[in-house]
């Protein structure tokens, strides 16, 4: 098969008018037929459609093709389609070559018919030259471990864990904080239906705790992940809680006696917690945690603990877990307006953020649900909300936080208005993005209640002597400048990547997008897959989204991952590194260059050789360029295969 004379078929796609409208596809096909080893060409209206694929398969049979070149769109989306089509008709999928004449010709040279056509011919010539040298490759597979790791126990991670657990897989649910629940546990009510956040989240948290297949690991962090799809080894750091969680009953008598008061993170630093504390009233697991950095060592908690659970000498524990698939759901953070004092935050007492407002509004919050302003603890009458704080702003983040901030400002204004009808509310906005189901109705409800919406971005915030805040803005709908005096100003801070996302990206080898969130494999067609096989991403780790979206994401990762778990094996790409032992001098350069540990030197003295662990190879090919003797080659991207393209960029005019 390998020594067979190449018989190449070239299929040129018109992609409707996407290609055919901007360059001469027939001329490209006719030109292809003049190239060596090309025995068949065809122009298809849509090569990727059923009819187009049938034309490829018919061409393979009729002309006995052993190589196929498709000149159409991008291999990043369509390579698997055409590979499968070739395979079905008996051509090795790795003897298929993709030429991109849409994204690289017709769409970017829309008004240069000749230029685009000439370039398409060049690209086809390069593709055909490479195709001639392509070798058949076999895909291998590896077994998939039946345990699952879910990183992050916010609503997305919890949903993923529940779904995995319900399907019978053993789940390790690792959460950095002392309780599961994530951000959602801190909200008061959630839009658009305004149900009480903890009332709907609490039962889900209990469901996680009850699920026999879920091992909850709170106050723990994933610090390293090695291995590959189906065979990951994760190292989890269990931070010391300084108490025996098996004995602790969560009675809270320790926090009653602890003399150290600190700002409460759960309450956004309004109110206090003790140095030893229960994270929040609905925490799962309901166990205390000792903040050793702030503990004064008085041992009052030890005396108060009837169960005798306190352990001051606890050490961090590192645990290794073997898992087959990973869901990463590390969530988001709210934009911090403090460093730049956006809209006077940090300068004026009565400018607070939405998350702070949520805690004030919450009946279980530091003020028992009474919204008061920080300067004098008086309940405000006139409250303003500014949207897009830290979002849609070239000085901060250019992206929109997905309508989440629009909706929580609408919701919060509405909630306070319902609670205290005597209050007045102004929402300063650029555009209201109430896009999902029920959002528009929630917006209308707020307007019907009397919440005033002013379209304009505030330009100046000043503080009066009585602590009131004056917002100066242009009402762009009326075309006039307005000055609104407020008792309290709430900043609708956008969503930003969570702390530690860079480290998590590095641990799992996941790229990040320009906005700083993790990148999914494809934004539309593979929204929870990632570029690392066996690793899936859920919730706000991959961009701003609301609770419904995050929950759906969590379930989606479980579904996608179960494809691997239920089959029990995962395919390994054929584009891995290969070694020619006759040329290898065991210098070990590849051992250092490979970030995945594919190469290891085995044997001693005269018997030394490089062992290649193919399953670890991700197919970057960096080792090939580093190898000084030319012993290494990357399958499918061999030196002569790439050079064939280089040597066919040009042609001799007289040929």
């Amino acid at each position, binding site marked *: 098969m390998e020594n067979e004379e190449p018989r190449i078929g070239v299929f040129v796609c018109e992609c409707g008018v996407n290609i055919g409208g901007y360059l001469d596809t027939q*001329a490209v096909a006719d*030109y292809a037929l003049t190239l060596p080893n090309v025995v068949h060409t065809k122009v298809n209206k849509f090569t990727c459609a059923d009819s187009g694929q049938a034309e490829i398969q018919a061409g393979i049979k009729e002309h006995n093709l052993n190589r196929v070149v498709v000149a159409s769109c*991008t291999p*990043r989306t369509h390579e698997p389609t055409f590979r499968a089509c070739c395979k079905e008709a008996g051509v090795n999928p790795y003897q298929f070559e993709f030429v*991109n004449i*849409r*994204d*690289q*010709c017709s*769409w*970017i*040279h*829309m*008004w*240069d018919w*000749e*230029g*685009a056509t*000439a*370039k398409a*011919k*060049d*690209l086809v010539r*390069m593709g055909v030259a490479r195709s001639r040298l392509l070798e058949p490759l076999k895909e291998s597979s590896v077994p998939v471990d039946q345990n699952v790791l879910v990183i992050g126990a916010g609503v997305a991670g919890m949903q993923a864990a529940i779904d995995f657990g319900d399907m019978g897989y053993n789940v390790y649910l690792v959460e950095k904080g002392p309780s599961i629940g994530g951000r959602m546990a801190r909200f008061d009510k959630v839009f658009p239906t305004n149900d009480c956040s903890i009332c709907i989240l609490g039962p889900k948290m209990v469901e996680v705790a009850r699920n026999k297949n879920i091992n909850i690991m709170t106050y723990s962090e994933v610090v390293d992940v090695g291995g590959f799809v189906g065979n990951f080894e994760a190292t989890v750091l269990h931070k010391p809680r300084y108490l025996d969680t098996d004995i602790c009953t969560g009675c809270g008598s320790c926090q009653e006696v602890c003399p150290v008061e600190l700002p409460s993170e759960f309450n956004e630093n309004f109110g206090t917690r003790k140095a030893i504390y229960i994270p929040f009233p609905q925490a799962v697991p309901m166990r205390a945690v000792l903040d050793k950095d702030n503990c004064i060592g008085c041992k009052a908690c030890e005396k108060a603990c009837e169960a005798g659970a306190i352990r001051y000498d606890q050490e961090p524990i590192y645990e290794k877990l073997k898992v087959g698939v990973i869901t990463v759901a590390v969530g988001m953070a709210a934009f911090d307006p403090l460093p730049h004092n956006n809209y006077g935050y940090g300068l004026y007492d009565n400018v607070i953020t939405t998350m702070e407002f949520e805690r004030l509004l919450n009946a279980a919050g530091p003020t028992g649900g009474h919204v008061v302003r920080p300067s004098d603890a008086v309940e405000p009458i006139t409250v303003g909300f500014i949207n897009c704080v830290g979002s849609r702003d070239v000085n901060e983040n250019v992206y929109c936080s997905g309508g989440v901030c629009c909706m929580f400002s609408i919701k919060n204004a509405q909630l306070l208005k319902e609670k205290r009808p005597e209050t007045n509310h102004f929402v300063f906005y650029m555009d209201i993005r109430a896009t999902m189901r029920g959002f528009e109705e929630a917006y209308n409800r707020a307007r019907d209640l009397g919440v005033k919406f002013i379209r304009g971005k505030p330009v100046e915030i000043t503080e009066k002597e009585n602590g009131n805040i004056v917002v100066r803005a242009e009402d762009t709908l009326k075309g006039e400048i307005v000055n609104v005096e407020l008792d309290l100003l709430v900043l609708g801070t956008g969503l930003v990547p969570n702390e530690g996302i*860079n480290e998590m990206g*590095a641990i799992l*080898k996941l*790229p*990040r*997008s*320009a906005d700083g969130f993790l*990148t999914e494999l494809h934004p539309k067609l593979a929204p929870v897959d990632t*570029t690392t096989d066996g690793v899936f991403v859920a919730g706000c780790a991959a961009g701003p989204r609301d609770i419904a979206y995050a929950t759906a994401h969590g379930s989606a990762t479980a579904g996608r991952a179960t494809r691997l778990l239920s089959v029990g094996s995962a395919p390994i790409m054929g*584009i891995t590194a290969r070694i020619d032992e006759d040329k290898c001098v065991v210098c070990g350069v590849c051992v250092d*260059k490979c*970030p*995945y540990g594919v190469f290891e030197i085995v044997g001693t003295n005269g018997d030394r050789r490089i062992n290649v662990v193919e399953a670890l190879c*991700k*197919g*970057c*090919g*960096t080792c*090939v*360029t*580093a190898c000084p003797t030319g012993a290494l080659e*990357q399958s499918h*991207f061999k*030196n002569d295969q*790439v*050079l064939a*393209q*280089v*040597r066919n*960029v*040009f*042609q*001799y*005019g*007289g*040929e």
Partner: protein
Amino acid sequence: MAEATATETTNEEWQPKIVMFCCNWCSYGGADSAGMGRFQQPPTVRVIRVMCSGRMDPVFILNAFLEGADGVLFSGCHIGDCHYVNGNYKATIKYKFLKAMVNELGLEDERLKLDWISASEGERYAQVVTEFTEQIKKVGPSPLKPEGVI
């Protein structure tokens, strides 16, 4: 007779021919995004896809010049964003070496350029191609170009 290229048919200003190496995950994705966003650019660039900028062998780039490339662009993920952890960092080492080699070959510095383009930077991709094309137009056709190639 081979097909006429844009250079001949338009018979206007000289159009250089540039070889561009893209990594699969970022810069090739950037090229896709440029297409998706219809960011127009001169038809001067011929893209060769490899999986990682770390795979870009100096041999490929020197060969491109020997074949007649007026310029060579090579591109990968931004530093810190490499799909393969740090292949792009290794590419920078090769770039430094290649810069010196390009001079040895008697070519101008401006003919070789390394630039990072992420998969979301379609507009920037078009900008890099356009600017590099302008730069090469100023330097003129490569003195290494074998006679008669188009």
